[in-house]
């Protein structure tokens, strides 16, 4: 379970302080798949950083499984996927996936077994001995995901993980992610600027305002699981959900543009 308790974040700078996160309180239950959307600069990624302990909040606190997140320490059982490529280029795929397990001094045999399972899960059988530069961007994304899954996280924080990919690759990865989540039921928090992606994948969407951000809308996506990521976009219920959120989010985008134009 994740709890954000009146959390705030301000970046102090000489010219102008940036009040990124206004005051956010939210609870995410274990096993939930939540997407956070909002205009750019609204502190979506900052929220994830605060949850993972990469950054210090200026007010309030974040709790993971009831324990306060200590800045500088990653909470136990938490996995994090960045938008940037985070595989080690000098290690083979197999060694990359095993990385978290070697940090934990897991035995050789157990590592081999786990890595074989994960390669299968990520449809990367036959690529275990490849170097990352020999893989496509989508495959490298899968390797990063498998590196995280090797550590059996209970919570997955996804920070615009598919942002840099083409639509086709992205949709395939959506399918894989949903499949993995249905099997393992981690708590997933997905930060994205792509509303399509949010509606396709998540059970709940939190819409943030422009900074200093607060929650504009906490919407439950009533599309039944399991979903087929290819056909779900064509259903009326998808459009309905999309519209409900877009009414709020689109307004926020429009105002943001107006502010920029006035400035």
């Amino acid at each position, binding site marked *: 379970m994740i709890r954000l308790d009146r959390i705030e974040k301000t970046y102090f700078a000489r010219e102008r302080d940036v009040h990124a996160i206004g005051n956010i309180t939210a609870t995410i239950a274990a096993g939930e798949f939540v997407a956070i959307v909002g205009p750019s600069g609204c502190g979506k990624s900052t929220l994830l950083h605060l949850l*993972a302990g*990469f950054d210090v909040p200026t007010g309030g606190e974040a709790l993971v499984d009831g324990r306060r997140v200590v800045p500088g320490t*990653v909470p136990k059982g*938490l*996995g*994090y996927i*960045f938008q*940037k490529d*985070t595989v*080690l*280029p*000098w*290690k083979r795929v197999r060694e990359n996936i095993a*990385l*978290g397990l*070697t*940090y*934990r001094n897991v035995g050789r045999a157990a590592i081999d077994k786990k890595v074989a399972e994960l390669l299968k899960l990520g449809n990367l059988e036959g690529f275990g001995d490849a*170097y*990352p*530069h020999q893989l496509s961007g989508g495959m490298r994304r899968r390797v*990063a995901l498998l*590196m*995280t899954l*090797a*550590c059996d996280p209970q919570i997955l924080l996804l920070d615009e993980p598919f942002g840099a990919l083409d639509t086709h690759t992205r949709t395939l990865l959506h399918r894989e992610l949903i499949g993995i989540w249905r099997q393992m039921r981690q708590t997933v928090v997905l930060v994205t600027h792509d509303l399509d992606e949010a509606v396709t994948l998540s059970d709940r969407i939190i819409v943030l305002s422009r900074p200093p951000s607060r929650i504009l809308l906490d919407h439950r996506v009533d599309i039944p699981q399991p979903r087929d990521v290819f056909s779900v976009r064509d259903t009326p219920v998808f459009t309905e959900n999309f519209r409900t959120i877009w009414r709020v989010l689109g307004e926020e985008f429009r105002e943001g543009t107006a502010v920029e134009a006035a400035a």
Partner: protein
Amino acid sequence: MTLPSLEPVARPASPAPAEGTSRQERLAATTRRQRMTRLRLLAWQVALVVLFLAIWEIGTRLSILSKNANIFDPFFVSRPSQIVSRLYDWTVGVKAGYLWPHLWATLGATMVGLVVAVVTGFFVGLLFSQKRELAIVFNPFIVALNSLPRIAFVPLITMIFGLGLASKVVTAWFIVFFLVFFNTFKGGMAIEKELLDFCRTLGASERQLTLTVRIPNAMAWIFTALPNAVSFSLIGVVISEFVGSTTGMGYLIIVSLATLNAGDMFASLTVLSLVGVTLVSLFQMLERRLLKWSPEFREQN
């Protein structure tokens, strides 16, 4: 320095052969054409070398040229046949074995200097890239030392460390260290915060981060610097031999100058250029081998 390559990147595909030929035939034809192109280019290169040597050899034998122009006077520029016979004398002829101690002295000092410089440059670079304060404190001194013409220190180094191996190694180290240090430092600063944070979420301790991310990353940056480093090391050693030593290829060159012996001079230069080319290509091969996981990385740096 790495030899800059003037070879074009890739030739555009040749026009396809007539319709109807099988895939194998086309492939074979393409391979044959490529091989012919390579052979033709190689023939040109060989022809240029032969032409150069021929002008040198014949020009120095024509009295009308050698009497009127220093660059054709064998007293100054020797001639290819004389260089070959001198090298023959030094290795298996009348002075058999004369060359080897000098060659080994230069090679040995180059390698020792290289190893010492790479190891020290690596650790200092890694340390500085992780301790920002250290880097800031030392920054002006390093900038100052690096912008000084370091060759100016060679006489001082010779004064302190004498005429033997130590001077040569210290000179090579002094020149190569900065190259390796800057590369490692730059590599350390270039690690993305996301990569370190990601490995932290996988459970890495600071020590494990250093072992599995920071050190391999720095090594990659060093490997790209190796061909340059070995070339600089050789330069350092030869300069040190010029300034003061009793062995080495640089010493042979200085002795040739003192005795105005162009034959010895060119024989030494020939050996030295062979040494340089061989070392640099060996280290380029080593670099390719060590960085086989990243063709992009080699090109970027």
